[in-house]
């Protein structure tokens, strides 16, 4: 495992284990995210990716989740923070974008209301301050800012639009870290690439770090600086995208590479070989 970036730029440094409902879910997970980088976290479903994201945000049920270790974020250990302290971080310093945009928006509320609530959670000011903030963040995700759009209910929008609204909500308070949990998996290929491009653009323009969680190594490859591979609750490999793709160390990573539906320049023969090796 390579830690080749300077220490002083580390935004988040996690080293912890987690038991949920008395079952070990994450085992000695080590993960570091640098300021401004896009970090990929890849693993198949059930590997504990989402749990990891939830642990960072402190959103797991306190009674059932027992974490040991630490998650250093900026100057504090997230695992030691109170709910109150965590709440001030959520949405302001660390924000989250979930997989299915339509169910992640409250179907009973207008877009404007939901954005307003998100703004009010960490800011106070006049209605026009709030309006400005909403407009700015909507512009940043290339959504219309007119009244007609703001009056819409989630059910009246396309999936892509809904995902942009969620992203707008997530970047509203200019967080230093955005966690995108399978944020593009539910989208069609074209929308997917648009959203990925949006993430990349936001990362470049605001300098916020992104923890990009996905089961799909291919989609991660396009935007991530570094990739961590999570397998059965452990980070089995972590490195730059080039490293991972060029020289996968762990057997699981190799299998992931082999299963990629993309035709690599090296040609199908390699793929065959690795696959054969894996099955043997």
């Amino acid at each position, binding site marked *: 495992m390579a830690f080749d970036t300077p220490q002083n730029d580390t935004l988040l440094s996690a080293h912890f284990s987690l038991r949920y409902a008395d079952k070990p879910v994450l085992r000695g997970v080590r993960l570091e995210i640098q300021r401004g980088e896009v970090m990929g976290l890849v693993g198949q479903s059930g590997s504990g990716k989402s749990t990891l994201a939830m642990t960072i945000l402190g959103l797991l049920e306190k009674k059932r989740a027992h974490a040991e270790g630490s998650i250093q974020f900026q100057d504090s250990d997230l695992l030691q923070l109170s709910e109150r302290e965590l709440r001030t971080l959520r949405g302001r310093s660390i924000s989250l974008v*979930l997989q299915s945009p339509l169910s992640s928006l409250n179907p009973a*509320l207008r877009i404007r209301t939901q954005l307003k609530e998100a703004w009010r959670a960490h800011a106070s000011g006049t209605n026009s301050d709030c309006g400005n903030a909403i407009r700015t963040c909507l512009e940043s995700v290339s959504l219309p800012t007119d009244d007609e759009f703001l009056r819409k209910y989630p059910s009246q929008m396309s999936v892509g639009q809904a995902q942009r609204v969620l992203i707008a909500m997530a970047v509203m308070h200019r967080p230093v870290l955005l966690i995108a949990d399978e944020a593009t998996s539910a989208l069609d290929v074209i929308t997917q690439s648009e959203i990925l491009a949006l993430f990349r653009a936001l990362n470049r323009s605001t300098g916020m770090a992104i923890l990009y969680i996905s089961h799909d190594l291919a989609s991660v490859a396009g935007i991530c600086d570094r990739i961590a591979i999570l397998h059965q609750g452990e980070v089995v490999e972590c490195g730059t995208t080039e490293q991972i793709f060029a020289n996968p160390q762990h057997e699981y990573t190799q299998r992931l590479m082999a299963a990629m539906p993309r035709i690599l320049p090296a040609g199908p023969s390699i793929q065959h070989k690795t696959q054969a090796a894996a099955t043997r």
Partner: protein
Amino acid sequence: MRSESMNLGRKLACAVLVLVLAASAAANWLAPAGYARQYRDATGAPPSRAHWLGTDEIGRDRFARVLYGTRISLLLAPAAAFLSTLMAAFIGGLAGYLGGAWARIAMAVTDLFLSLPWLFLLITARALMPLNVSPLVSVLVTFLLLGLLGWTTAARVLCTTAASLRSSDFVRQARAVGLPGQRLFWIHVVPNLKPVLYAQFWISIPVFILSEANLGILGLGVAEPMPSWGSLLKELEGMVSVGEEPWKFVPLILLVVVVTSFQLLLSRQEEIAA
């Protein structure tokens, strides 16, 4: 086309409600003789110029009784329905949202409530009340009781709905945005309980109106000579055919029309949202 017809329906509903409310508010002028006056020489009379809806069995003007009864029922039944809905939302919704021990306690209380021998309790309630209460106090107490007791079934539904909302994506997303718990409940849970709450509210109104009439058996409910929709509906007991005395059905029709109008008018937003 559709929205136009809806618009028409809404206008109609609005007109009906304004008319009914105005008429009942103006009962003193429209029926100056009052609801208690007994025309003992014209009992059980069919509609006439003097008595637009005829008279009841002891000769009281049915039109006057409908007007005054509307005042009572239209004010108190929705008030009681609102009370019970609020309690259901608070008890069921909050318990479901908080989950865990809270939900268990709330549901145990609800089960206890559902299994209580109501008849016995209501008889006790009547026994605790003095016999000499004015008709108005009697009907107020009755609707208050109905409001305080009618929340249980809705609370169960609300509890499960709220529990499923709690683990929903948008609540998780909202928590990730940093909304405080209280805000989460009011902004994200309550609005999504609305369909259940609406249903509870609208079902409660006619149920309470009829319950009030039936509680007369226990010496609760509106007391003579004051009218209520419930006591007017009681006239329909044992009627065999509609054709016989159709004017007696006016209170029933009024109840149906008013409840439907309210529903039409207030469910507008829901329809647009859907």
